[in-house]
């Protein structure tokens, strides 16, 4: 379903916004030990976004689960 993809992408973007805010706060507080985990978390979110866009294809009634086009009977 397209809606599921869009909702998940929006939620991941919101999560990345929170991570960016935490990164800025940690940098201003000179709390350097948490910067790398925050950047890794943001990277993981980006990888998940890419995987959703590239590989999660909406199902179609015209195609079977293995990708063949159904015959119109």
């Amino acid at each position, binding site marked *: 379903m*397209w809606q599921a*993809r*869009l909702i998940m*992408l*929006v939620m*991941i*973007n919101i999560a*990345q*916004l929170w*991570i*960016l805010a935490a*990164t*800025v*706060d*940690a*940098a201003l*507080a*000179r*709390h*350097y030990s948490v*910067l*790398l985990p*925050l*950047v890794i978390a*943001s*990277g993981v*979110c*980006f990888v998940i*976004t*890419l995987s959703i*866009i590239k590989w999660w294809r909406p199902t179609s009634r015209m195609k079977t689960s293995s990708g063949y086009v159904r015959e119109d009977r």
Partner: protein
Amino acid sequence: MSKNPSDESDVRTATAPFQAEFPYDRDEEAQVTRREFCNFLGLTSAALFAGAAGFAAKAALDARESVSPAAARIDGAGSLAPNSSLNFSYPTERDSAILIRTADGAYHAYGQKCTHLSCPVYYARESQRLECPCHEGAFDAATGDVLYGPPPRPLDAIEVEMRDGQIWAIGRNPSAKDRG
């Protein structure tokens, strides 16, 4: 003859009298497809990741390039009475600071910027603590730790030492969330 479900001619005919009040050309209205929106969200995700990584890299670089500030004498500190304070600048003119002599005679110095939203803190003699007038935050005069209010971390501590009867500021330690 069956009507095409996507035929909007009836709707347009019905809304024609109101078009004059809200004139816009529906055909020229930009249409965003779901695929385009998905791609936009992907680009946004990439931009947010790049922003976080860039900000963290710059902060790490600035930390490596930081230079210890030179020592500076605090004028007027020698005559400071107990339970009173003195404003000065350290390490540069733009870095406001406050020197406190507590009731027991000890000297403590901190950066004057509140860690909440950078309002200048002042020394309250009655309560013997540093207070922020903007959002009612307070800091311990002896340690700079947050006592109450919205400030997220302690004040920047400035190291002071006595040299020939004069008070000298010899270093500035940025505050950190974890202490000890």
